[in-house]
């Protein structure tokens, strides 16, 4: 049971971080379908940082490891998301095509990079696996019997940050105006392009962070050919279910996280083992639930009005 709660909290953290990323980007007016790819690249940054620390600085303190992994994952996410921002904001590309390209490119690039590093280290090693058994332990701490993860704390901070930024600061309110009616925002002197860039880059930082949390959940190595198994899109479903509001996104993420966690730990429950279902059924669960939830809630969706439409200053 404790294991189920731990995993639920971990997967909910991933979903909250990435869905908040989507939330920032969509509130500024850009649909970020590339979150999946951004997660992969963020995860790559974090995983490489961990394996480098394990090899070159084995004595590094836990604090250094935690901070450097978090910062580098976010940095990778930000840099990678700028590819989306350039194409969608400045060159008015189709946001769906560019987002899809970002996803495919993320997995392909991560695989190529990891394989190149592995092969350079050992010519016989052609796998796309990065290992981080030792440094991963720096992220864990215990409260009573519970094994918690610093990422959960970071997620709470991100949640508070998102709520305050979006609703209590000039910057957040202006950004949301750009997602609702960019022409009106421009008419009162807000630079729509800048705001959209800010939205996409923040989503890159949060998406990259979500990526490293995802690949460290439960495993100590990651095969980058797998990408992140549609988690970026699950996060978008969480965001829609959460009606683009941080506090509701957190609740939605807990629900989805629970179903994802079940597929990891169902063998620990006697009655589920007794059902004798193939493991594939549990793997399918989060996706089935999200489809049902979306079907029930999308009708009255409160999406930002101008999302997905490139802003053209000269258009009336």
């Amino acid at each position: 049971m404790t294991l189920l709660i731990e995993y639920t909290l971990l997967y909910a953290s991933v979903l909250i971080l990435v869905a908040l990323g989507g939330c920032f980007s969509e509130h500024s007016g850009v649909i970020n379908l590339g979150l999946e790819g951004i997660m992969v690249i963020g995860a790559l940054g974090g995983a490489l940082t961990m394996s480098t620390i394990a090899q070159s600085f084995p004595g590094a303190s836990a604090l250094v490891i935690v901070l450097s992994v978090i910062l580098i994952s976010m940095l990778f996410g930000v840099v990678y998301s700028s590819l989306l921002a350039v194409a969608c904001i400045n060159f008015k590309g189709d946001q769906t095509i560019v987002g899809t390209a970002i996803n495919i490119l993320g997995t392909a690039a991560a695989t190529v990079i990891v394989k190149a590093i592995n092969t350079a280290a050992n010519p016989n090693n052609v796998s796309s696996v990065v290992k981080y058994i030792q440094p991963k332990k720096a992220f864990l701490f215990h409260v009573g019997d519970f094994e918690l993860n610093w990422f959960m704390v970071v997620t709470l901070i991100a949640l508070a940050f998102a709520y305050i930024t979006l609703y209590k600061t000039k910057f957040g309110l202006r950004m949301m105006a750009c997602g609702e009616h960019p022409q009106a925002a421009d008419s009162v002197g807000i630079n729509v392009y800048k705001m959209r860039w800010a939205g996409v880059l923040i989503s890159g930082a949060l998406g990259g962070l979500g990526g490293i949390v995802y690949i460290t959940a439960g495993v100590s190595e990651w095969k980058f050919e797998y990408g992140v198994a549609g988690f970026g899109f699950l996060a978008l479903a969480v965001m829609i279910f959460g009606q683009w509001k941080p506090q509701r996104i957190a609740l939605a993420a807990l629900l989805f996280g629970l179903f994802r966690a079940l597929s990891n730990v169902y063998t620990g429950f006697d009655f589920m083992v007794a059902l004798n279902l193939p493991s594939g059924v549990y793997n399918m669960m989060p996706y089935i639930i999200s489809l049902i939830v979306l079907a029930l809630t999308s009708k009255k969706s409160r999406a930002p009005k101008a999302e997905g439409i490139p802003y053209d200053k000269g258009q009336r």
Partner: protein
Amino acid sequence: MNLKMRTLLKNNAFQAILSSLLCILGGLIIGFIVLLFINPGGAWEGITDLIKNFMNYDNSKVAIKYFGSTLVKTAPLLMCSLSILFCYKVGLFNIGAAGQYGLGAGIALYAALAWGMPWWICMILGTLAGGILGLLSGVLKAYCNVNEVISGIMLNWISLYGVNILLTGVKESTSPYTISVSGANKSAIIPTLGLDKLFNNNQYVTLAVPLAIIIAVAIWVLLEKTKLGYELKATGNNKNAAKYCGMAEKRNIILTLIIGGALAGLGAAMFYLTGYEQWNCSASSVPTMGFNGISAAFLGGLNPIGSIFSSFFIQHITMGGAYLDKTMYCAQISDLISAIIIYLCGFVLFLRYMMNIRIARKEEKEALAAKSISDDAENNKEGGEA
């Protein structure tokens, strides 16, 4: 820039081909730079091996056999790209093609291996399976306002795990792969109609290859020459206007995704019923064919005829990746190149827009210049009279 050149640049088809070629060039250049970074010594050889694919064999008989294999895998890719471009013309982004392809493969293989059906029934069942998955996305989109991209991705994963469970019943006991179709049920192999002889007895070159091309032409006719195609495209351009003109916009959305799904499902049947490859029942990623279809569709300028060529090209470099020197590079470089090509396709509209604006500006300038010359001449004439 002379006049002939300019009329050529204004031509839509020419613009589309030019921008696709630029995307390919860009993708290859960036791929080359990546190879240089990984290992500068073998980069040039690497990129040429990748582009040559089957032409790496000096023996023309072997080369033509592998040319056949590239065609065998081009057929399903073409079907996936047709699925995506057909839906895109109606304003829908069918990213679910990968799942429709997977389910089509699952049902076709199950019918062949568990029920011992002949190939054409397996093919029809695979097509139907893809169509039903498309129907699901369509209903969710039309009646529940669920974005087809998100429902498509969810259905991709659901169908992947579903097919894994289904085909575990007909897999080999010692490996995660399904039992071979040609061994278990000869009647489920698509007939070759003698095409295998053309490719040095490559038994996998079947009826599927010409059939895929015929379907591409049929999709072009459907989109450009029929009332239904016109209605579907109108719905894609403006849903509300189409509704106002009395077109059933909900029906059109659903119908489009059914056709899109059926195309992807048929593509899977065309491939797995040749026996070229078996399904891996412990696969943990969605078939890449559906995603490569996106590259092929956009690279082909969203034209069914164009996508015949772009599908071949994408498949050509994907298989070319296998000829890279394994001690230096990995085959995924090809995926990287096709991903960069899709990314660059995102800029195509902007590129064409800029091209048109430059031409229009130049023409305007020339018209003004011509006018001022004639004005001057007139002024001179008036001056002379005064």
